[in-house]
């Protein structure tokens, strides 16, 4: 192999910047996408469920039953939108989707309480939505204000949440969002950038010049590393200013970690560009690679809850490791040196995929 030329790599990177400067839509997406996603995820996605629509049937209608209803409402998990005459009616309202919860207090509520004969009351839940199920579970633990069971047990463990005691969703989501957005945009931009040259015929000219595949690859990557940094800085800035996301680790660690991730995930875009023949195919392949990462990386669903096979698969994805790195640095004040277990898989991914992409990218037309 011939020596790489820094001048040629720079020439390609410079040219890529020219393209970006003239392509207002892409340039807009560089800034717009992270802002939009951060706002959407920060405001709209809230796993801390509040104000579920509830219906109530209070057959007891005593001071104790009214107190129980008041306590349930006070949790803010539910709000009463309807009163019904029978449990049957509650079921129908749930089936119709008008309420998510039905609170049924039987006529012998006081007797049951007096005799300490649970269950005292019943909670009908619409568990076709798992989020409702989770919220209702919490509601079922609601203690009852009554002398007979006032001695509510203190529990075996005292819970000490170290990093996000208020359980605010943006604190979990925003750091992870850095990884998710980078995974999408980095892969897409790089894949498109090369496929576009092929589609427009530029590549036929380029491959008759002395330029080497690896030079082309590196040159193409450089501008997108910059873009990646712009994007994560934006996301973090929004996270801190709008959602009070604490940044506990050092920014240096954060940027170095992000850099390693960006470079490794970019190679996936390069690989896609050697497979896809049109920009449309590049889009499709990018989303095909993005979805499993989004679902399995631990961003959307807890990693520990997945089957073993899915966990092994997820360990291959750069996003999985970056989520651990970024949550570690931003939320837990970890240093990069504490996270080497997550860094070497990224480096390995980079080396393997880059080698694959370079091998696949031939300076030929057949």
């Amino acid at each position, binding site marked *: 192999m011939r020596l790489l030329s820094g001048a040629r790599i720079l020439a390609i990177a*410079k040219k890529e910047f*020219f393209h970006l400067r003239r392509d207002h839509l892409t340039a807009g997406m560089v800034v717009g996408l992270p802002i939009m996603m951060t706002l959407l995820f920060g405001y709209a996605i809230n796993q801390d469920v509040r104000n579920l629509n509830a219906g109530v049937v209070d057959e007891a209608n005593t001071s104790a039953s009214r107190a129980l209803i008041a306590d349930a409402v006070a949790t803010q998990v539910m709000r009463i939108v309807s009163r019904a005459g029978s449990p049957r009616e509650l079921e129908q309202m749930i089936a119709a989707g008008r309420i998510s919860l039905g609170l049924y207090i039987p006529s012998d509520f006081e007797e049951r309480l007096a005799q300490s004969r649970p269950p005292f009351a019943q909670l009908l839940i619409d568990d076709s939505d798992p989020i409702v199920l989770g919220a209702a579970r919490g509601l079922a633990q609601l203690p009852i204000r009554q002398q007979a069971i006032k001695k509510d047990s203190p529990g075996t463990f005292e819970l000490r949440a170290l990093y996000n005691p208020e359980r605010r969703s943006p604190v979990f989501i925003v750091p992870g969002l850095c990884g998710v957005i980078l995974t999408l945009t980095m892969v897409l931009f790089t894949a498109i950038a090369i496929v576009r040259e092929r589609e427009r015929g530029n590549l036929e000219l380029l491959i008759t010049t002395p330029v080497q595949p690896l030079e082309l690859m590196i040159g193409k990557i450089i501008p997108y590393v910059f873009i990646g940094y712009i994007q994560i800085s934006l996301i973090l800035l929004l996270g801190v200013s709008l959602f009070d996301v604490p940044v506990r680790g050092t920014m240096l660690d954060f940027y170095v970690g992000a850099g390693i991730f960006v470079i490794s995930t970019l190679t996936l875009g390069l690989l896609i560009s050697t497979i896809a023949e049109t920009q449309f195919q590049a889009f499709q392949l990018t989303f095909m690679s993005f979805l499993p990462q989004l679902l399995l990386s631990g961003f959307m669903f807890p990693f520990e809850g997945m089957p073993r096979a899915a966990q092994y698969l997820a360990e291959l994805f750069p996003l999985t490791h970056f989520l651990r790195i970024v949550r570690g640095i931003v939320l837990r004040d970890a240093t990069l040196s504490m996270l080497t277990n997550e860094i070497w898989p990224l480096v390995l991914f980079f080396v393997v995929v880059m080698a694959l992409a370079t091998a696949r990218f031939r300076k030929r037309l057949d």
Partner: protein
Amino acid sequence: MTIAIETHDLTRHFGDLVAVDHVNMQVPKGSIYGFLGPNGCGKSTTIRMLCGLLIPTEGGASVLGIDVLDDPEAVKSKIGYMTQRFSLYEDLTVRENLQFMSEIYQMSRTDRAQRIRVQLKKFGLDDRARQLAGTLSGGQRQRLSLAAVTLHEPELLFLDEPTSAVDPESRREFWEFLFDMVDRGTTVLVTTHFMDEAERCHALAILDQGVLVADGSPKQLMAELPASVVEVASDTTRIVREVLLELSEVIDVAQLGSRLHALVQPDVQNPTAFLGAALERKSLLASLKLVAPNLEDVFVMATLGRGADR
């Protein structure tokens, strides 16, 4: 005379299709060598093999003394290749495109500025330097492409149908540039399907369905045409053509404007009288004249002979 390109049994298959079929040719240095042939005859495929972009299925080629199979990369720094389609960046300006190419060819910084200035002036793009390439006219794009691929002063230039999308004046101008470069020692291999362009080449190769069916200088090809050419002028050219084509001594009849060119077997002693008699029998009026073959006749003859063989 030294040789710039030499091929031996150069062959390329695409699946079942034989795009280029055992082509043997020699292109002398410092000449314009033309590839003449209809679309899909294997012109572009041959060029791409010579540039190292396609691997020959069989046979090989040496370009500027380098075997293209052994070391395609060594070839690439010595040649310029102007693709059929405009392949510079439409969203870059004229100057940015040239700058990019100069950097890719690793020209020194001082050389670069100097060469770009020279090329802009030479190809009349001075006042377009800051314009986006995508907004140039067909002729301007052509000039820019040529400026870009000759920036590094290649010894050998491949041009794939360089003038198919430009007006006649730009074509003429374009050929002036080519002659200019050849004068200074560059070798040019150009594909075309314009006869007037083919006639300007020092040497020609006619390709038909991947096979090299004739080659030589245009003069030589016309002089050695194995047929007599009779020009037929008539008001009823269509009927006349049908009648002539029925004669076994007539190889083919091509329409050139309002006249016909009939290619007659060389063993017919007096072709004008022979055809005249045939037309008279059908009571058709026509004036006939024996003419010197032109390149079109050569082309018709070369591509037809093969069709009949099959």
